[in-house]
């Protein structure tokens, strides 16, 4: 006898205008399992889950919960059907307490006090059962991201959800927090809960799921047992062609120092010291990766190096001191000194989304003679130049007149990358190169970075993706609380040691040995 599926979707289709987000999707999720759904950005994973949670209505298709056909017109119905969802961007009220967030929408009566008391008891019980400890009286805005996520899980469990959907849950977590989350999920599975895990990280799929479904361009391309597959096969199913998961590179040949930073300090607008004496050297022909949980000063370091932030200490570029506070402390002067910058926040600092691709591909370099002479710009030449760059960097669609916002994440990043790399900088600052970028484009971007290194350029990479840091860097510096905790060679370290350094442990090796 076959078991009844906890969730069965039959022939779900959903179109947004001309875009077919989901095409005839059928999937069975068995109870008491962790079912992974993997796919590139825009493959339709989130749309599918939104339909299941009543955010969108499917154009066609049926939803069956525990063997019963169920209509889910809104979130209320999804909750009633026992579905809980942990969104990628948390749906929490920042200045409410944990308790208030948990009971919101699930209050027992018109007055709050009885509900709050009841929730306090339930939360205590859940905390013990599933390692979901959170201070129930704490305000959300005072909690770490990991704890906020626990509140989201608690919200779902408080509503007695049997089916939990998590959308990219580890994107914002440290490795230790992610491990803790996986322990929680394992505990929930043991209690018979059904979990759907949406992710683009192959490692997580392999680590925790029982079954995995792969989505590509709105279609479900395969559903396989995790034990019977491997990352290479999944990547191929996601992208539709063979993908190199490892970065292919020869050992670095570091030459003379290009960037020398010493005792760099930066105090932000709120008077908080964000950089507390950074010492760092990047040589020609090497990639130095900065690992760290976001918010530990990496962004400020990139800003100061890129010229948008005053600082004290010293930065030398090719042996010459840079101006850190005066009128040559700006992005233009830095670019003139041979520093290219691919900012972390592509949408706000890298591009102007409403401007066209060709306009975006000259920003920062619009003073140069190639854009025209005097007051006038040579638009025709600029468009041609942009077209050539887009061809070389395989930007799709290759239309210079299209607004930047109409490109996918990966193609936007390629536009920025092309702009910076094609100027042949001595040093390239690159922040979160593959955030929100598809796996196929990641491969291409990584190749470009390695090629630039092999051409004898210095590269400083900041990323919150530890996998990316490990595979791309020739040397890794770990940042915590505005300081460099230590430098490691990728061959001589592992995720555990880096994870501890990222959490501020000064000497993880010694700690491990007691």
């Amino acid at each position, binding site marked *: 006898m076959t078991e009844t599926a906890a969730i069965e979707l039959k022939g779900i289709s959903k179109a947004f205008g001309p875009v077919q987000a989901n095409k005839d999707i059928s999937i069975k999720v068995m109870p008491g399992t962790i079912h992974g759904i993997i796919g590139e950005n825009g493959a339709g994973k*989130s749309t599918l889950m*939104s339909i299941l*949670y009543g*955010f969108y209505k499917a154009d066609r298709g049926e939803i069956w919960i525990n063997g019963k056909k169920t209509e889910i017109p*809104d*979130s*209320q119905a*999804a*909750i009633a059907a026992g579905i809980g*969802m942990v*969104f*990628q*961007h948390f*749906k*929490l*009220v*920042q*200045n*409410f307490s944990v308790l*208030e*967030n948990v*009971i*919101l*929408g*699930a*209050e027992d*009566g*018109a*007055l*709050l*006090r009885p*509900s709050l008391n009841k929730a306090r008891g339930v939360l205590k019980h859940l905390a013990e059962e599933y390692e979901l400890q959170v201070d129930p009286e704490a305000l959300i805005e005072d909690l770490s991201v990991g704890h906020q996520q626990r509140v989201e899980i608690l*919200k779902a469990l408080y509503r007695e959800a049997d089916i939990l959907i998590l959308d990219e849950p580890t994107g914002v977590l440290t490795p230790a927090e992610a491990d803790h989350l996986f322990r929680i999920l394992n505990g929930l599975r043991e209690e018979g809960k059904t979990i759907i895990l949406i992710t683009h990280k192959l490692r997580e799929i392999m680590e925790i799921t029982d079954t995995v479904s792969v989505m590509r361009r709105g279609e479900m391309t395969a559903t396989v047992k995790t034990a019977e597959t491997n990352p290479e096969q999944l990547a191929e199913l996601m992208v539709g062609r063979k993908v190199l998961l490892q970065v292919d590179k020869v050992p670095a040949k570091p030459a003379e120092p290009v960037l020398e930073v010493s005792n760099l300090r930066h105090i932000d607008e709120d008077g908080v010291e964000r950089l507390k004496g950074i010492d760092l050297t990047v040589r020609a022909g090497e990639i130095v990766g900065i690992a760290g949980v976001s918010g530990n000063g990496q962004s400020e370091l990139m800003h100061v190096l890129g010229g948008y932030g005053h600082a004290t200490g010293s930065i030398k570029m090719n042996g010459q001191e840079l101006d850190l506070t005066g009128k040559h402390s700006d992005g233009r002067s830095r670019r003139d000194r041979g520093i290219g910058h691919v900012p972390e926040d592509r949408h706000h600092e890298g591009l102007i989304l409403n401007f066209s691709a060709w306009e975006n591909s000259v920003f920062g370099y619009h003073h140069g003679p190639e854009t025209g002479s005097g007051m006038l710009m040579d638009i025709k030449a600029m468009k041609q130049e942009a077209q050539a760059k887009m061809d070389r960097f395989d930007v799709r669609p290759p239309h210079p007149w299209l607004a930047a916002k109409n490109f996918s994440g990966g193609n936007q990043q390629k536009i920025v990358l092309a702009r910076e790399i094609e100027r042949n900088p001595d040093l390239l600052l690159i922040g979160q190169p593959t955030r929100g970028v598809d796996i196929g484009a990641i491969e291409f971007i990584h190749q470009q970075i390695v090629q630039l290194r092999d051409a004898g350029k210095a590269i400083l990479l900041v990323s919150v993706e530890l996998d990316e840091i490990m595979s791309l860097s020739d040397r890794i510096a770990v940042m915590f609380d505005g300081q460099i905790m230590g430098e490691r060679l990728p061959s001589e370290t592992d995720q555990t040691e880096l994870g501890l350094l990222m959490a501020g442990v000064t000497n993880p090796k010694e700690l491990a040995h007691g």
Partner: protein
Amino acid sequence: MDLAVIIQVLDSSIRLSTPLLLACLAGLFSERAGIFDIGLEGKMLISAFASAAFAFTTGNVWIGLMAGIGASLALSAIHGLASITFRGNQLISGVALNFLASGLTVLIAQNWFKQGGRTPTIPEEQRFQDITLPFADALRDVPVFGPIYSDLISGHSALAYIAFLMVPLTWWVLFRTRFGLRLRAVGEAPDAVDTAGVSVIGLRFAAVGTCGVLCGIAGAYLATSLQAGFVKEMTAGRGYIALAALIFAKWRPWYALMACLLFGFLQAVALRFQNIRLGDFVIPVQLMEALPYILTVVILAGFVGKAIPPRAGGEPYVKER
């Protein structure tokens, strides 16, 4: 200055604070739910007209009050429709409603009563009567407390007492009830409310409706209690002062009471002391009359500190993920 003068000024402060307080609490409900309402002024004005017109015509001040609330609710409904249902700009909708009320009241008043855009004076007995609290006369001769109770606390209209009772009630609703929790949540994070299975639109309309009722009472107080009928633009910027008080109060009910009493006091002082002589220099009456407004600007600019409005304030809710 003797006690009698002080009590006179304070008594007048309470009378002048009442409409501000009602409007301020009205704005509090709306803005806590994420709907900015610059149209408090217009709602008060149209209610002032409707309540005066109906009180005069029917001879029943309670019918006047209901008409005022109804007229104010009609504007609330338009504001809700524009800014919640059709996701329009809340400021523009509010400003438009102010213009609408300003023109409409005078137009209808002129057509109806033919007295130059005003209503006839409502006779004393058809207005809200001042209520004498128990023992007010008996206690009058007790030193200090007597005059405070008999002349300051006693002797206001029912609407004024309603206004001041609204403060603890608002606090209780906001912080002790399910409706209040949801209302505050929808002004901070409507997506959290939506994913919790609660209707964002329903909550916001409820808040805007509450705002309409309170503005209606405020307008009725102006025309049938504080004064005896409607005159053109009789709200005189009180809706905007109430908004200023709301920011000053950081969107909290008890602070709103303090802020409104302060602004009411400033207006009372300006009315009472019209020509103050400082040596040879006489402070012109215009300056005294402008004082509450000048102080509003100064207080808002300098003394409020960081007032953090509800995070989702002013933004229509669009479902997305």
